């Protein structure tokens, strides 16, 4: 029997919960988004609070820290967005509950190896983007773009919200058309780029546990207009400007009481300074482009300030 679930991590967990409760061994777990001609399909509805249910069960049976660790591994593996991960995740969770231990170390079991590898891929990408994300200063906020393979936006935004707490910034995932808006000393909101609608995450509880404060925007979103989605490229003051809560250009955005030193700093364009610094930092006698590419794969280069060509007609020579 095949089980169909509503696309999303909660949908998958609901399917897994169904199988475990009714002791069903499914031939496959398929998301709703893919059409299927199979007749032997059972549709499972998404339960409310299914993530919390799993975490509680795992923590009760295995232990507080290990239980949470198992759910985080499963969630990270899900965020890798690899095809066929659903069946592996089902095997992973079932094994965890049967053996009452974290199965991540048993890599000789193929399903566990897939889940661990997917989780590691997501974790590595998230860590890479903590370093490779580059903000550029727009008039009244900072903007960063990137195109990750895995859905790492919810993993990196808490880090920047903590680090740049007094800064209004927008991080855009151009592959998935999502954007995260952080207001200075304020909350973080996730939006879809195409229509600036907030993303209503079904159950933000797990995200909260990893540190992200998400606010469900209950009220009507002001200024929503059907503008076309911007293709990947330079800026979009228009897109971000329509997100509610972002300060209008005329505002003096000085939340932290910048003193004179910092006001001077904001006026300069730091991208040429950064390129200049990097150019003079490498030692020619130790040149090793292969090592550079191994550590910093080319797929990260498009949005790096230092790899962009200097703008034409720039005065810095």
């Amino acid at each position: 029997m095949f089980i169909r679930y509503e696309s999303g991590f909660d949908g998958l967990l609901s399917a897994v919960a169904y199988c475990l409760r009714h002791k069903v061994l499914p031939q496959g777990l398929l998301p709703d988004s893919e059409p299927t001609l199979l007749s032997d399909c059972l549709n499972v509805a998404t339960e409310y609070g299914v993530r919390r249910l799993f975490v509680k069960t795992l923590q009760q049976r295995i232990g507080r820290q290990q239980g949470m660790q198992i759910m985080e591994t499963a969630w990270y593996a899900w965020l890798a967005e690899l095809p066929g991960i659903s069946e592996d995740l089902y095997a992973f969770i079932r094994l965890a509950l049967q053996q009452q231990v974290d199965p991540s170390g048993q890599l000789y079991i193929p399903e566990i190896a897939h889940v661990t590898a997917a989780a590691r891929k997501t974790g590595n990408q998230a860590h890479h983007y903590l370093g490779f994300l580059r903000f550029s200063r727009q008039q009244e906020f900072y903007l960063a773009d990137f195109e990750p393979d895995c859905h790492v936006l919810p993993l990196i935004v808490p880090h920047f919200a903590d680090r740049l707490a007094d800064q209004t910034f927008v991080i855009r995932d151009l592959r998935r058309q999502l954007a995260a808006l952080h207001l200075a000393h304020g909350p973080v909101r996730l939006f879809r780029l195409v229509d600036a609608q907030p993303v209503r995450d079904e159950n933000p509880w797990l995200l909260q546990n990893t540190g992200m404060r998400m606010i469900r925007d209950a009220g009507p979103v002001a200024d929503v207009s059907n503008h076309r989605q911007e293709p990947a490229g330079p800026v979009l003051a228009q897109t971000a400007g329509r997100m509610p809560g972002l300060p209008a250009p005329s505002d003096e955005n000085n939340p932290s009481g910048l003193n004179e030193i910092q006001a001077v700093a904001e006026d300069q364009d730091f991208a040429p300074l950064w390129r200049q610094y990097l150019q003079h930092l490498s030692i020619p006698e130790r040149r090793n482009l292969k090592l550079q590419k191994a550590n910093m794969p080319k797929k990260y280069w498009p949005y790096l300030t230092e790899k962009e060509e200097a703008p034409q007609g720039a005065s810095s020579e």
Partner: protein
Amino acid sequence: MDLMQKLAILGESARYDVSCSSSGISRSGDGTGIGNASLGGICHSWTEDGRCVSLLKVLMTNYCEYDCLYCANRHSNDIPRAAFTPEELASLTIGFYRRNYIEGLFLSSGVIKNADYTLERMIGTLQILRNDLHFNGYIHAKAIPGASTDLIRTLGFLADRVSVNIEQCTEQGLNMLAPQKTADAIARPMLDIHRQIADNRDEIIRYRHAPQFAPAGQSTQLIVGASPERDLNILTMTQKLYDQYQLKRVYYSAYIPINRDSRLPALTQAPPLLREHRLYQADWLMRFYHFEAKELVDRSQPDLDLEIDPKCSWALRHLDRFPVEINQADYDTLLRVPGIGVRSAQRIVAARRSHRLRPEDLKAMGLVMKRASWFILCDGHYTARHIPDAASLRFWLADKQGYQRQSRQQLSLEDVAHVHPL
């Protein structure tokens, strides 16, 4: 001189300081300022020589009173000189930090007037960053050899990591290459920092929110290849630094010939990059694999083998300890097997509790079977094709690519000297 020019000069002058890490402390934003610190460190970019960039690494000034032979900034070199003002440097750091170019600041300086004056200027910059701008990111400060204890104390409460470059591990080497730096001038600040860190740990036990002195610890740097020191000297000194001074890291910097001097290697000599790589491998073995320096090098073999990595080299000299049974050996024995790293050893020990490992499981567990198969038994089975003799095993384990790259480099420079112009 504008900021771009200053940054070019002072960034270039600081590039031979290889320490780059931004790891060691975990600190979250405090809500009033800007910045946090990540425990494992974050790499923001990589230079064309393959080194990681995670901090804004600059000299406060490259004017210097000293005339160390190996240094590009030495007093007798005629190069453009510049100096940052504390305000400029602080605003540059914050500007880069806001754009996520860097984790923090790495500040060193050439010596103006005397060590104390230089250190006061550096402290001025750090005070602007920490106190006025509420910067909570990572700061690595270099203490100037010969500076007074009080200034080092002030520096340690502002920076996350403090370091003093040892440069040479023998006093003769130091006297030859840096005559104005005495061994005592370097050792005393290191001892000061070590004592302050230990005292601070006691303070924090008594009062949890006491200000922290250099929470990411102390590190240092040794130059490799500028003087006739052997790997035995270097590794013995490294062991002493880790055991007695509790340093977090020792860095090795391959000597890049810049200055012409009869006491230094020739300008045409290639930097000893492979030797530096072997030293780092030995350093890792000492820190994570519980090796001691005397197991890796000794008087009969005072240098590390360039052709083969130190762990394999040790294994070849102690073949009587192998093969090792995976399902029974303890953690420390597993660590000694070439091809088994820390993670693989931990996985094996954890998986063994519930499962008897079979030969076909090992590759999935992360072992490098190309090396490990010669040294292990799994469930009684020898996993390699046949039992080799020492000579052919050495051939299998040799790092041919790395050695060829190094020899090729040296050969090409020597060839240049022999070409006769027609």
